[in-house]
């Protein structure tokens, strides 16, 4: 499989005051293959969205590199870079209510990218927007409407059409389904899977619904407090988690099966994700880990691969 995205020790810090630095994404090295869906999971505050935004250039990188198809992307995107990469990388946002401009019609929202790229007549843009509205399951005559006239699921489809109208090869989906009802989530997830198959795009699917991530993804990356804790094929990570954090995260996910829930009473993970400001050395999960050892507070664990696809950053396996 050819690699489309490769990050090397990607870091994004935010300075929020004197000597106070938020280590949002702290050194991630991952690859995403062509035509692959990679799921990214973790609690809020684990740096998932920051990572996604840094990859597509919406955040400047503090350090580290992002390679797109063997080409190093700039650390700071200029308007010209955005224009260049907008036909390659796109993003779908979490909240379909706040990510669409209420004062623009659907035609303006979806057509804006084409307009900014240039080289399209008004009729071309209209035709393309109509085509994409059909592809995401809406009607072409919806293009003259404003987004307040649509339901959450329909708005998310508009967001998908806006991202895909420029034919990108790689799309970051930042919690695209968490604001939607269960029945609508399935529609959006199936739609994304379909576009992967028909358009050959790669997706970074950020979400906190583990069952849904397992369902859509080929591989899963688990993040905790800015760092990668586990990576592997979706079923490997979900059914045979290595890292204690992944195990607890998956056990926290309630199954829609009362019998199973009665038979598997589980002890919730204790505490909450600590502040990402001025992180102490050692394993970031040490404070909440049920299997913590003395060394965990001193040594920062490195990713140890169990086989060529599955690995965890935990001293249990070092």
């Amino acid at each position, binding site marked *: 499989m050819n690699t489309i995205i490769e990050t090397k020790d990607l870091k994004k810090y935010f300075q929020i005051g004197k000597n106070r630095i938020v280590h949002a994404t702290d050194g991630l090295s991952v690859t995403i293959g062509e035509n692959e869906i990679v799921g990214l999971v973790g*609690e*809020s505050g684990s740096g998932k969205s920051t990572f996604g935004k840094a990859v597509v250039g919406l955040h400047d990188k503090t350090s580290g590199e992002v390679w797109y198809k063997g080409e190093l992307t700039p650390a700071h995107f200029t308007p010209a870079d955005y224009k260049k990469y907008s036909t390659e990388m796109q993003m779908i946002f979490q909240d379909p209510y706040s990510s669409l401009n209420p004062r623009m019609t659907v035609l303006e929202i979806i057509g804006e990218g084409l307009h900014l790229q240039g080289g399209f007549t008004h009729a071309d843009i209209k035709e393309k927007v109509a085509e994409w509205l059909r592809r995401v399951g809406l009607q072409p005559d919806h293009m003259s409407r404003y987004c307040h006239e649509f*339901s*959450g*699921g329909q708005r998310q489809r508009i967001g998908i059409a806006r991202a895909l109208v420029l034919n990108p090869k790689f799309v970051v989906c930042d919690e695209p389904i968490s604001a939607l*009802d*269960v*029945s*609508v*989530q*399935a*529609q959006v*997830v*199936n739609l994304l899977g379909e576009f992967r198959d028909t358009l050959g795009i790669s997706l970074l699917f950020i979400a*906190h*619904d*583990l*069952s*849904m991530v*397992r*369902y859509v993804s080929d591989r899963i990356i688990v993040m905790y407090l800015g760092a990668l804790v586990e990576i592997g094929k979706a*079923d490997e990570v*979900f*059914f045979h988690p290595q890292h204690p954090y992944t195990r*607890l*995260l998956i*056990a*926290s*996910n*309630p*199954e*829609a*099966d*009362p*019998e*199973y*829930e009665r038979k598997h009473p*589980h002890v*919730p*993970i204790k505490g*909450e994700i600590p502040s990402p400001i001025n992180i102490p050395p050692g394993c970031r999960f040490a404070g909440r880990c049920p299997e913590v050892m003395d060394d965990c507070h001193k040594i920062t664990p490195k990713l140890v691969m169990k086989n060529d696809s599955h690995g965890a950053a935990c001293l249990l396996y070092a």
Partner: protein
Amino acid sequence: MKKTNNSNVLEVKDLNVDFSTYGGTVKAVRGVSYNVRKGKTLGVVGESGCGKSVTVQAILQLIPMPPGRITSGSAKLNGKEMIGLSPKDINTIRGREIGVIFQDPMSSLNPTMKIGKQIAETVKVHQHASNDEAMQKAIALLEKTKIPEAAKRAQQYPFEFSGGMLQRASIAMSLACDPTLLVADEPTTALDVTIQSQTLEIMHALQQNMGMSIILITHDLGVIAKMAHDVAVMYAGQVIEAGPVDDIFYRSSHPYTLGLRHAMPTNIEGADRKLMPIDGSPPDLFKPPAGCGYYARCPYAMRVCEKHNPEEFTISGKHFARCWLQHSSAPKVEGELFQIGHTENA
């Protein structure tokens, strides 16, 4: 589920709620009946806009009236009618006999008031306690919901709490007067799975210790499976299927309940199936359909479904479904949905 007896804390019967708007009248709740058993949890599940929250909010007079209006129906709390109570009378029930937890703890607490004081206020109003007593009680309540360093935390403002801690504080507040019924409206929707699991565990433990009943409103079938003893599935302002939790999950009898389950992935290794979304959207409740609300989206819709609203057909015991397929002269459906719905029986 219709018989009146002492084991029910809350009995809602044929409740109808309308909202008058510029666009016309929305029939948000259309004849909802359900019972909450003593010491048990009733899970109410359904999509946004199905009326699951409005039903309890109307009973507690938490919706502005007008535009809201209860057109008919009754809701008896321990045999006492709640519909039509004066604002003063309902105030003695709210907070004392019925505690409420809302979805977004950040917006349901006063941002300018210390957590402890907010909880103490409830105690003071309902139990006429002194300031000191009320504060002591508030701290004890925070401890009950496993907030570490409760005395110190009581002196903090909501913005100093994380989402999970805030939700615990609102649980503490709702429990201030040992309510017989706790209404939890999407209590964990805004939380991470790990924090959700902690919060549900706390609610579960409190129910065991204090013996209160819970109405748990959610759209997450996983949460329902974990917490509920009885389930009511709502759609377009009606309860379309209800019964004990095992019946709802292992003997689902309404195509909508089945549809919801098939729209979610099952986590069985090596047994993947494609998710089946429910196409279309719920009916417009400005003009509720004459027949079954699910008619337009139902893969098994028959002619009768369009014009006639199905009654409650008993499947077994307390399990019923509002679906014409359950009528004795309806064709036997062995569609894919039903196949899967019944083979997962444990």
